């Protein structure tokens, strides 16, 4: 047994190390948020949201096509992903003894961790290669591949939060199981399910890698999913590696918009699942 004083000193030293590590862990995010706000917030003006990009080297212009493109691409992706993700979540949470579940859970988690760029490659092989042209739709498909496992995971966990009594009450009244799930369990978990959809959307909306060779980018405003389409993270990337000051300024502004989206959805998620 070492003496007590030495043990206390050691305890305090460890506490200092732990606090230092915590500060170090929080440092990158704080710096990224701080620099993005300082460099980008002043560039968020009306033009940024309403105008298209100017030719290289000219001042001004904005990211309207990219903002519209991101909304369309992720929106269509969400529509495609939702039924698959929610169905998988229902299977995992409501049919716990289904034989498929261990495999499904393993593969779903694995798919969730798979690099987003590979999902983009799959969309490329399935759509762009076949059709012979880049398109907004192929970007949406890549987004859907990213969202499905996230939606499955969040749906499963919010359905599991619904008290088991509610299901028993429904079954005791003679409702069949499918009716219990659709009319009792899903409505009870509605806020959580919707939050899961939002989190998945926010995660996918920030991805640039799978869009580079699917949606491709487009400096003109388009609503046509069969045409190349612009997206905010794509435009951010293109501007960040360009040599023009003014484009760097706009890239920072795009970073602020993407960060705002992420912060808003995560705050909403916390608010919906509060007290649990």
């Amino acid at each position: 047994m070492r003496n007590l004083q030495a043990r206390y000193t050691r305890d305090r030293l460890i506490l200092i190390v732990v606090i230092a590590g915590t500060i170090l862990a929080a440092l990158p995010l704080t710096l990224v948020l701080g620099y993005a706000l300082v460099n980008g917030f002043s560039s968020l003006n009306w033009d940024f949201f309403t105008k298209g990009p100017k030719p290289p080297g000219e001042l001004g212009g904005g990211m309207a096509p990219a903002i519209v493109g991101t909304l369309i691409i992720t929106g269509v992706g969400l529509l495609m992903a939702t039924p698959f993700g929610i169905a998988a979540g229902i299977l995992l949470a409501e049919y716990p003894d289904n034989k498929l579940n261990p495999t499904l859970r393993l593969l779903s988690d694995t798919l969730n961790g798979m690099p987003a760029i590979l999902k983009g490659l799959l969309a490329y092989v399935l759509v762009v290669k076949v059709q012979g042209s880049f398109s907004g739709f192929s970007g949406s498909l890549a987004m859907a591949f990213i969202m499905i496992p996230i939606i499955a995971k969040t749906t499963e966990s919010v359905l599991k939060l619904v008290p088991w009594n509610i299901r028993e009450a429904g079954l005791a009244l003679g409702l069949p199981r499918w009716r219990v799930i659709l009319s009792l369990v899903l409505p009870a978990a509605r806020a959580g399910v919707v939050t899961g959809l939002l989190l998945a959307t926010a995660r996918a909306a920030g991805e640039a890698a799978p869009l580079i060779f699917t949606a491709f980018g487009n400096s003109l405003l388009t609503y046509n999913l069969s045409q190349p389409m612009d997206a905010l993270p794509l435009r951010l990337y293109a501007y960040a590696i360009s040599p023009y000051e003014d484009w760097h300024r706009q890239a920072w502004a795009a970073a602020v918009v993407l960060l705002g989206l992420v912060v808003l959805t995560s705050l909403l998620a916390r608010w919906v699942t509060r007290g649990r």
Partner: protein
Amino acid sequence: MQQAPVQSSIIKQQPSAIYRVLGDRIFLSVVLLLALSIVALTLGLGYYLYLGGSQTINKEGFFGFLTGTTWDPALKLEFGIWPFVLGTLITSLAALVVSVPVALAAAIFTAEYAPRWLAGFINYLVDLMAAVPSVVYGIWGIFVLAPFLREIIYLPAFLWAAENAPGLSPFLGNPAGYGMFTGIVILSSMIIPFTAALSRDAIALVPAAQREGAYALGATRWEVMQTVILPYARGGVFAGAMLALGRALGETMAVAMVIGNGNILPYTLFGPASTMPAVIALEMKEAVEDLHYSAIIGVGFYLFLIAFIVNAAASYLLNKLKVGDQRA
């Protein structure tokens, strides 16, 4: 006047057979079918990437493609992906080694030391960190981190080596700021939340009786941590590290933006390097030659194999441990 007809609609009318008998089967079949798409998607991902890359993989051989060190899509049309594999493995593993202790410290602090409000705030920051888009880290890396590291580390180290240890200079490489070391730093900061979140959950699952037992024996806080909590939470920490490794392997934009994208071996500490996701992101849309196109998808196939093993191991561990059940 008469009340008889009213009650019949509730009591006598039986729901249809479809509703009662077939409903459950139809519903389960639909749910199963939709859920099976996840299985199909995961396996299809590997299959289509192999198919897309098969032309080059067949030409260079399964292992020849993996271990070839020349990537020349312009003149010789020779494709070996070893520089990218090596770059991915070095940066990811180095980032893991740097980030795990830091993430563990954050998890220990929030789970054991911090007051509730502070723990909640730090946990929120950590969760937020995982959601910040890669390109946002990337733009910060280009304009803030890389110039900063160049001024305070690369240039001084380079100048010092030039004067005092000329033998060291070749290992340091070009101190431009965009290179392997910068890539490692940005990767380490990006993967902290994955280890931190799972470690925190694992620590929270340690039974109170075990801690109290150790405290009752007179252990200090750190001794409780060392002898009771960390051994118990070991599995969760390990799973978190695996998950973080999986993220690091696939991290694309932020790395591509700061790593300098040079694929000539041998790599140096500060000099340009490249990773598998980065080469896919940068060359895919310019690939005109069939062989080049197929080679890039081939890179994707090998990345799939590595990422599949790491992620499947992580999810297997997690499902076994039942840690992180509530996490998206």
